[in-house]
């Protein structure tokens, strides 16, 4: 691991303050990207506050939010992100077959209208760098302008998180298989 957790004794007072604040929030600890992010405490603190909204306060229903995160984890080949959010997605009621298809880079077969809407929007934004008029209009119609922004923000935030996890080398827990296989690029 390139940027492992910083032992308590080695933290600067600023790092300690930020670590305590993050652990006191709804996450409860520094798992995922936050041990690595602590190298830049101002960034760590502000990214954590952003992530809190996108995990716990977003206007997008939990299962659809996790669907967008999984598409993002796949787009960035972020193993830990996909591993961690697969569990949260299952807990939120997203069908395993959909998760498996995303992991394999396939379009899921059976999706509800809402799932398909989010899948299309997210896939287009990562792949084409923008959502089509049709996908944009559907999300706006269903969740309003706020929903569009919350969806874009969660995908962007988890792009940032995926970058941190990959560069820091945050591993999936011992014994867990890597959820993502390499895809052949078109």
């Amino acid at each position: 691991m390139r940027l492992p957790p910083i032992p308590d004794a080695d933290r600067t007072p600023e790092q300690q303050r930020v670590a305590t604040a993050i652990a006191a929030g709804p996450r409860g600890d520094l798992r995922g990207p936050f041990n690595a992010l602590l190298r830049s405490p101002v960034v760590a603190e502000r990214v954590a506050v952003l992530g809190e909204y996108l995990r716990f306060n977003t206007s997008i229903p939990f299962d659809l939010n996790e669907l967008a995160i999984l598409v993002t984890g796949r787009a960035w080949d972020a193993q830990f992100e996909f591993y961690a959010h697969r569990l949260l997605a299952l807990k939120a009621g997203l069908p395993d077959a959909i998760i498996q298809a995303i992991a394999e880079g396939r379009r899921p077969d059976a999706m509800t209208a809402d799932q398909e809407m989010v899948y299309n929007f997210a896939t287009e934004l990562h792949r084409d760098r923008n959502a089509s008029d049709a996908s944009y209009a559907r999300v706006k119609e269903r969740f309003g302008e706020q929903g569009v922004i919350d969806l874009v923000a969660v995908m962007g935030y988890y792009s940032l998180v995926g970058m941190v996890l990959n560069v820091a080398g945050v591993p999936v827990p011992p014994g867990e298989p890597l959820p993502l296989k390499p895809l052949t690029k078109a």
Partner: protein
Amino acid sequence: MNRLRMAATLALALAASGPAWAQDLRFPTLAPEQMTEAQSRVAAAIAGGPRGRIAGPFNAWLRSPDIGDRLQRVGEGVRFKSSIPRDLNEFAILIVAREWTAQYEWYAHHRLAMEAGLPAAVAADLAQGRKPRQMSTDQALVYDFCMQLHRDHQVTDATFNAVKARFGEQGVIDLIAVSGYYVIVSMTLNTAQTQLPAGVAPPLPILRRRS
């Protein structure tokens, strides 16, 4: 601050910012009097901070004011509190703009990059999708790190170690954070279809993407 004073302060800040107010095809510009209290509070915080005005992604982000506020604080961190020297930080931002073909982002940050001393030839090559031919050691370091991050979603050990040796572990995180934050900005600008000011030609040619 009460609502009226807030709206007045905001109207003043926006008047000062003039035509820089973003024009988004997909998100009509919010006038101060149309804003909810939460929206005008966040707009005032943005216009009253080091940016001094509302431009770029902020008109779109105000649709979800709580997220807009949290995003602008991350943005302030990666722009104004970074350990990465300003010219290199702006270079990293231009790389994101090129990768996402985010025209407005390139337009806004090209000026800032030039002010910070990034050579025009480096930016010009990047705009064309070429590896810049004449780069300093530091510029080449940032280029390799950021391009690997965007294209391969990972950096090599050699690149990681070189950035860590030069800018420390904080530098590594600051470089990733600025890259990630501007991915969020690019996604927003592209989704919002944020327009360039009238009379400005798109600075980035459309390239065939490699991935």
